[in-house]
């Protein structure tokens, strides 16, 4: 839970932006491992609706999360353009299902604004800040909050 807090330094960071529904989001490029085309996932039983299941990523079992559903929007219907972004979140690797990858952005921290107060609980939880660039509004995702805490389920 210790992401560097947003300071007003002029260090440049690179972000990958992508589309979820009609909105634009982004994550830090350093967290992205790879971007892959959609392939069907194996459904996980007893799991929240935003967990699309698991896929085989070169021998590792990779959970796929529907980002739209995770932040409270309707679930994504995967199509040929859908991709998942493999990101490192803490000690886990997870795939985020998004509609399309749009851009790589170079931003400085002073372009980043705190999340406005009006937003709903989910958005405040998962969005670190909002970036305004060329008239677009892009929300930066806070990766370490995406995955639920590991819980020891009673067998």
């Amino acid at each position, binding site marked *: 839970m210790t992401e560097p807090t947003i300071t007003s330094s002029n260090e440049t960071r690179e972000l990958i932006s992508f589309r979820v529904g009609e909105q634009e989001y982004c994550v830090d490029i350093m967290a992205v491992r790879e971007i892959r085309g959609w392939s069907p996932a194996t459904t996980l*039983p007893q799991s929240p609706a935003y967990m699309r299941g698991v896929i085989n990523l070169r021998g*590792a*079992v990779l959970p796929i999360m529907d980002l739209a559903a995770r932040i409270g929007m309707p679930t994504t219907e995967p199509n040929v353009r859908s991709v998942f972004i493999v990101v490192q979140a803490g000690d886990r690797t997870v795939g985020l299902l998004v509609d399309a990858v749009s851009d790589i952005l170079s931003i400085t921290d002073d372009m980043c604004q705190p999340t406005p107060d009006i937003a709903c609980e989910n958005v405040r939880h998962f969005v670190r800040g909002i970036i305004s660039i060329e008239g677009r509004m892009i929300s930066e995702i806070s990766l370490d909050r995406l995955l639920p805490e590991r819980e020891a389920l009673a067998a």
Partner: protein
Amino acid sequence: MDELEAIKVTFFQECEELLADLEGGLLAMQDGNDDGDTVNAVFRAVHSIKGGAGAFGLEPLVRFAHVFETLLDALRSNEIPGTPDLTALLLRASDVLADHVSAARGLGVVDMDVSAAMAAELKIATDPNAAPAAAAPVAEAPQYVDAAPIVIGADDGMDDDDLGFDFQPMTITLDAQAADAAVLDGDVWTVSIRPKSDLYRKANETALLLRELSRLGPIQATLDDSALPALEFIDPEAAYVTWSVRVETEQGEEAIREVFEFVDGDCDLEITRGEAPVADVLASLLDIAAPAPAPEAAPVAVEIPAEAPPVSAVGPAAEAAPLAAPMPVSAPAPAAPPVAANAPAPAAAKPAQIDVPGPGQSVIRVDPERIDRLIDLVGELVINQAMLAQRVGEYGIAPSSNLAMGLDELEQLTREIQDSVMAIRAQPVKSVFQRMPRLVREVANMTGKQARLVMDGENTEVDKTVIERLSDPITHMLRNAIDHGLESPEERKAAGKNPEGVVRLAALHRSGRIVIEVQDDGKGINRERVHSIAVKKGLISPDLTLTDEEIDNLIFLPGFSTADKISDVSGRGVGMDVVKRSVQALGGRISITSRPGLGSTFTLSLPLTLAVLDGMVVDVAGETLVIPLACIVESLRPKAEEIRPLGPVGSVLAVRDSFVPLIDVGLTLNYRDRSPPPTEGVVLLVEGEDGSRAALVADAIHGQRQVVIKSLEQNYQQVEGVAAATILGDGRVALILDVDAVINLRRRGPPPPSDPTLIAAE
């Protein structure tokens, strides 16, 4: 300090091996095999532990090991006879030594009373005539001073092959004045160290040696750099300098030698009593004077046995000749060689006897993580190969085509690679077994039984993942066998048996699994009592008729305990059911056979690895699932008349007179909302860990397959009803079903709103 810690870790690893050797040797002696080699090996093990411990300053360990070693030394030189009682004492002493090692490692504490009592026992055994309170036999050094102020290494003493430190040289006593000086000299040793380049190459460091020496007493070190060539001739990796160290210590020569234990052979070492004898100087001078650097020759010339300082050592020359000031080369050179000539044999033989580890095969130590990675990769290779084969099959390529044949070869190679890689990680069960003799001794002591452990098949190999989990069940079973199985010595005598019971622990491979057997020759299971206890505790109903085998297996029921009195060892009623559960969690099975009056046998069978699993691949609601084969009792296609509804939604399956709850896997895992009629699917009769049965309904069976187990938790978390995941031939992830969790899920069963009925069938 980290480096030192790392060396310490290695030391403790070696200690473990040495303790195992020690115990192995003592057990061999117990079996009547007490030839000199075994005794020597046992002595070496204790000696090496002591030596290493000394280097790390582990005082209590060193002290105890020393007493132990002294006794073994006496045994080795036939000063005391080897008897079964003595071997038993040595075995107990080895347990205390192991405790000391663990304590030094920071794992647990040593009961100092026990240790002291054991040390006292060992001392008495070493010298029965000595009063128990006699000083520890460390007193070698003072003895030297009293008895032999000056020692002459007479030639005839030199061909003695016994190279202990207790030589019997001729002694002469000089006039009173000289003797006084000599007594003073008794505590003064001169140590001359001439490192060879190998010493540095092996990352040893003279400064550390000097520091160790300084722990023995005040030292005065003098560096002799006269052999140092001019800069342009210097070989940067060669060793040129010599130290001469004057040590004042009461701890004797042995203590000094121990400091050099780890550099033995890598430096020329002379230890002489008193101030630097002239022979040393001469020898070093000779060497220095030699025109060609001839390191091979050096040891011969320099290794003068410490026991044999020439008489001239006390002459005025020694005082007048501090090492740092080289004497002229014209000194009477011939004086040195004769003395040195006597030396090499004993000086070289001694280290061979004590320090060289047993004849080891060449072994590579590899970080286990690398092997794990390799095994992962091979797992992926297996999946990939299966995937290719499936694709080729889909294209309808003829099996006789080159491509298909090449694929077949690939498959064989892949399998061989997998087997070989698994073999790398396989370890003999010895590492677990060797902890058991001690356990048996302790449990037998605690329960007042007499027990002898016989082990078989220690070299049976099994994957590391399984080895780690074997220890607990075996411990439990052995405790149980001694505590509940064996009778007391009196009872055994009354029954016409040997008062000493035999517990047999064996490991073997059987049909791709490892089987562990624990057998005792005790009284066997008292079936009447077991039955009545099970009834009394409400575990079974009183009017149930059970076969002998079924009664025997009652002891695996949770909350069952037959011991009349609760002992320290077992008998809290958490014994065998815990064993059974932990074994089943590993995909294993446990069973018992018993013959009244003759004893019982527990048989434990486990998969050889936890990296792969034999499973049945099934289809459920469009998903592919793997059900562990170990859980499956049978599979069948149910007929309509065998399915009986029970309550509003539940139903049971009639299997040969018993009714088993039907569980639709798809429904339980929320893959679908309502189950299709079971008659359209396949039923897999499974047995849960607690022995309860259930009939799992799947849509279709694809067949039996070996799958590579992949963790779900690594990137996500545990999912109820799923044990792990695997990757199938088509590259997709399939989930491995956790049969027990599925049964439990269904029992709690929220899916159909009101459904408390399913428990009834058992």
